[in-house]
């Protein structure tokens, strides 16, 4: 069976001349249908750029991206966005501050010409654990966790197969993070979704993903399964450093 997301020798470069930056260099990986795949790395390692390149927010300079066996087209067509949706890191910045939740959720439906907006909005709010009562509020009337639920609802409202999750919980408190991660996990099983999750937190990725790719300076360091990670079977020094660092501070 071929993979649902197939990334081959992907490179992303920005700028030219002196300000030329190679954000992603020669990265390849496959994500199977229904899998949850993690990209781990520090800031500047290019992990978010890969997500942005897949959904057309960053230029693909070299290499290919196939979704469901088809190469992605530039610019991406509406059919692509019905299949692939993204949830961004910062729920304070990714939702229009002067639009109600109702308007935030109806926009994608209008763009894609769905007729049953009313039912879908109600259903999407139910799915993410926000009742009808939140529908006509503004983002500033919601907490960070509730806003991230709205962002997830907005992504799910088109019933995509693939969710690209860019640090979905790093702006949230630990206690709220647990709720959002549980929600994402439950939705994946219920709707048979495929996740590509980016995080700097090895523990979050180990909890959510079956397979993970460690990145540094825009290149792939190594690919591991969760079992291998739990057995501490990392072969690269950088991965071992990350594992040690995630155990917390140790005095000299």
């Amino acid at each position, binding site marked *: 069976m071929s993979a649902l997301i197939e990334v081959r020798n992907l490179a992303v470069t920005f700028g030219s001349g002196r300000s030329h930056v190679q954000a992603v260099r020669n990265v390849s990986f496959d994500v199977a249908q229904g899998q949850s795949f993690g990209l781990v790395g*520090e*800031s*500047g390692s290019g992990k978010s750029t890969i997500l942005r390149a897949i959904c057309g927010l960053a230029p693909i300079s070299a290499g290919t991206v196939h979704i469901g066996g088809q190469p992605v087209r530039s610019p991406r067509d509406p059919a692509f966005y019905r299949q692939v949706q993204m949830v961004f890191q910062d729920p304070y910045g990714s939702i229009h501050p002067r639009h109600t939740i109702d308007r935030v959720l109806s926009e994608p439906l209008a763009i894609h010409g769905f007729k049953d907006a009313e039912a879908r909005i109600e259903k999407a709010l139910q799915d993410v654990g926000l009742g009808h009562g939140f529908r006509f509020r503004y983002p500033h009337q919601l907490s*960070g966790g509730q806003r991230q639920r709205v962002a997830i609802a907005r992504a799910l409202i088109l019933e995509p197969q693939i969710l690209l999750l860019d640090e979905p919980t790093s702006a949230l*408190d*630990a*206690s*709220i*993070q*647990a*709720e959002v*991660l*549980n929600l994402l*996990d*439950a939705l994946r099983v219920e709707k048979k979704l495929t996740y590509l999750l980016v995080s*700097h*937190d*090895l*523990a*979050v990725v*180990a*909890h*959510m993903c079956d397979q993970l790719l460690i990145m540094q300076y825009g290149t792939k360091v190594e690919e591991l399964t969760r079992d291998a*990670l*739990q057995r501490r079977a990392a072969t690269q020094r950088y991965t071992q*450093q*990350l*594992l040690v*660092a*995630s*155990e*917390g*501070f*140790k*005095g*000299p």
Partner: protein
Amino acid sequence: MTDLLQVAGLNVSFPSRDGPVRVVRDVTFNLGRERLGIVGESGSGKSQTGRAILGLTPGSGTMTADRLTFDGIDLRQASVKTWRTLRGPRMSMIMQDPKYSLNPVMKVGLQIVEAYRRRGDATRADGRDRAIAMLEAVQIRDPERVFRAYPHELSGGMGQRAMIAMMLIAEPDLLIADEVTSALDVTVQLDVLRILDDLVRDRGMGLIFISHDLRLVSSFCDRVLVMYAGRVVEEIAASDLHHAQHPYTQGLLNCLPQIDGARGPLQTLTRDTAWLA
């Protein structure tokens, strides 16, 4: 030994349409030359506690305390002049968000030099070298470039480290670090903690480390105060954290995902208003 900082019955409240909101309630603790962690969710009053100690409660809020002394100086009656000798050279606070805490129209290097010169005994030429050395100490790869950069030209992590450099250059006696490492990568996080650790160990600095990451705090601090809705619900030695009695502390610990954790859903926090009684 007298404590560096003594806080008793600290209250902070803000007015609202429905009467005053008490964001810090009867907080009492003493700080020696040690690492004290304050942990809680957002809105639990941990940052306001830190701000109140430095006299930085916003104008709309009211701060009262039965006792608030720093090295024998009563901070409740401190004059503007006294504050000027304290804030910066002797006690300082690293704020959460470098985007809003650095001066946007001033080069980072000059801001650090300015902080250094507040100490009094510093010369201009010396300041530049010290600032560069400090930027190196917080693991900035290209300190010359950062020295000349404006805050908007730095990433979040770099800005945070520049802030830390600025606060540490004056070598204060008391440092309040408000979520300093939350925006940093794990490996850099440990570097920053190591710098703070050295300062506590070598110079006998007192450190209040505010964070929502209970596991990090427990591995770094000596003692932890757990706050819920403005009240300290538990005070516990960091090494005993896994024997925490209060359900809120246990909840905060258990809701974190673990590399070796099971696949099942994570525990979520239950909150009880009876804890405020």
